[in-house]
């Protein structure tokens, strides 16, 4: 079973290594934000030092690539419905969830590498985090990648229409970004914003990331984010495997 997932993961990772350039484009945007937007935030953060600004701002930037990178992962699988690759895999002896699992694990690996690069750049700009906090953050990134990736695959397999897919992803990405407080904590805003944010999974990831980078490893936001993401990952994976089964109907 899981052997099949590692086979697909290996196949996908070799594909990534053949073209390692593209994921680098994905991190350009957050790096530009870190370099040119973060310096403007000094007055909004208590204390206002580089360290405090970066601890607040970096987690949001990391989750931005999770959202914008992995949410579009479904396009690759849509191509595979057309060229018959999925059709062939589905009637092979493979354990079906491995088809999705192998792909989202690849996306998660790519995302963790991108995130590590962003942490390194933030550290160079003046961020100070413990190794444990950084590793936990990378774990959270991996979960975010799994969630966004399997959501994207499920959506792609359900609608199988590139135009609709790109509209829906754009439509979702904007509010998810704004209501998560990706750029500034929603706690700075009015109460109703915080209330809406509670329905956005990304909000918990950003909050947990900020607690981690602040060095507040005992914050309840951290286990809460992990718990929510594990559950949502399981649900979206089930959804995507179900959509896979419906391919032939």
């Amino acid at each position, binding site marked *: 079973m899981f052997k*099949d997932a590692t*086979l*697909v993961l290996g*196949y996908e990772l*070799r*594909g990534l290594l*053949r*073209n390692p350039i593209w994921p680098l484009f994905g991190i350009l945007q957050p790096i530009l934000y870190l370099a040119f937007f973060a310096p403007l935030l000094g007055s909004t953060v208590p204390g206002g030092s580089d360290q405090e600004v970066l601890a607040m701002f970096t987690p949001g930037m990391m989750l931005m690539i999770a959202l914008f990178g992995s949410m579009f992962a479904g396009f690759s699988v849509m*191509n*595979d419905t*057309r*060229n*018959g*690759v999925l*059709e*062939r*895999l*589905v*009637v*092979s*002896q*493979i354990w079906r969830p491995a088809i999705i699992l192998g792909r989202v694990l690849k996306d998660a690996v790519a995302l963790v590498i991108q995130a590590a690069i962003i942490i390194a750049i933030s550290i160079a700009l003046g961020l100070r985090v413990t190794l444990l906090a950084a590793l936990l953050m990378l774990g959270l990134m991996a979960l975010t990648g799994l969630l966004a990736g399997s959501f994207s695959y499920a959506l792609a397999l359900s609608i199988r229409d590139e135009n609709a897919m790109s509209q829906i992803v754009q439509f979702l990405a904007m509010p998810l970004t704004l209501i998560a407080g990706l750029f500034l904590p929603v706690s700075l805003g009015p109460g109703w914003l915080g209330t809406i944010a509670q329905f956005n999974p990304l909000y918990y990831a950003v909050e947990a990331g900020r607690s981690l980078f602040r060095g507040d490893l005992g914050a309840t936001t951290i286990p809460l984010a992990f718990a929510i993401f594990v559950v949502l990952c399981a649900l979206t994976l089930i959804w995507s495997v179900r959509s896979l089964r419906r*391919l*032939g*109907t």
Partner: protein
Amino acid sequence: MIIEAHELRKTFVSGRGKGNEVEAVRGIDLEVADGEVFAVLGPNGAGKTTTVRMLATFTPPTSGRALVNGFDIVKQADKVRASIGYVSQSGGVDDLAPAIENLMLAGRIAGMSKAQAKARAEELMEIFALGEIGNRPARTLSGGQKRRFAVAIGLVAAPPLIFLDEPTTGLDPQNRANLWEEVRKLRAQGTSVLLTTHYLDEADALCDRLVIVDHGRIVAEGTPEALKKEVAGDVVTVKVADRIEQARALLSAEPYVREVVQEDDLLRAYLDDGERGLPSVLRALDRDGLVIQSITLSRATLDDVFLKHTGRSLRDAA
């Protein structure tokens, strides 16, 4: 029997509500013997692909039963999948990866070790004359090369049965001939093959037995020879300048003519011994002063079988 299907049906429901139902397959019975090359011949939209997809466990049937290699396609789908190779119409080759990667992944999924999968991939690339290009991204391959790769992927696990859905559609004559040769080799090795095609000559040249399908139903079944013999040995195709109805009645009245079918402005007279019958046909038309614009004598083809059972020519049936 490698395949036994009884009353297989598939109705697709698109969207909501009534009126959106498409009966793609309306009760198909099939029996394919071990080692046979079996063709499903029919026009586009006849239900060929849906039938193959049901047998390959991709599409669940709406009703009916089928056994593939002795296993139920619904209840024992896992065992069916271990018994088959499936090459879809679109091929299933990942364009971005080198073809050898596709082959090796298929081998590993079938349970081979890395070394075994590599050896098998190299063996297949040798057989299909793809050795030189296995490390190039599949998107750089020609249509014929890609199709050969698709078939090779289907054969990785050396299954007792392989499905080839429209294997030569879009291939040039040279590549078609090559692929036919591969199918004949498979038969020589004892692999059962079920292929779908809308090419008459392909079904005629390749298969041991075939079914002709139209609108989701089987309209004829048998060996190519038997089916053609059922229609007649030969066909005389006549085009007259005018008075086509008179010509038709005249030909029908001749005792050696089995049947006359009109197809647009052509009359097709079926007779058992064309060489002997042709002069009589000419005399009969000449007697009544009908002007012949063209006349040809040919062997009956599977298209004549199709025409007889559906009233249309397969070339016209889109």
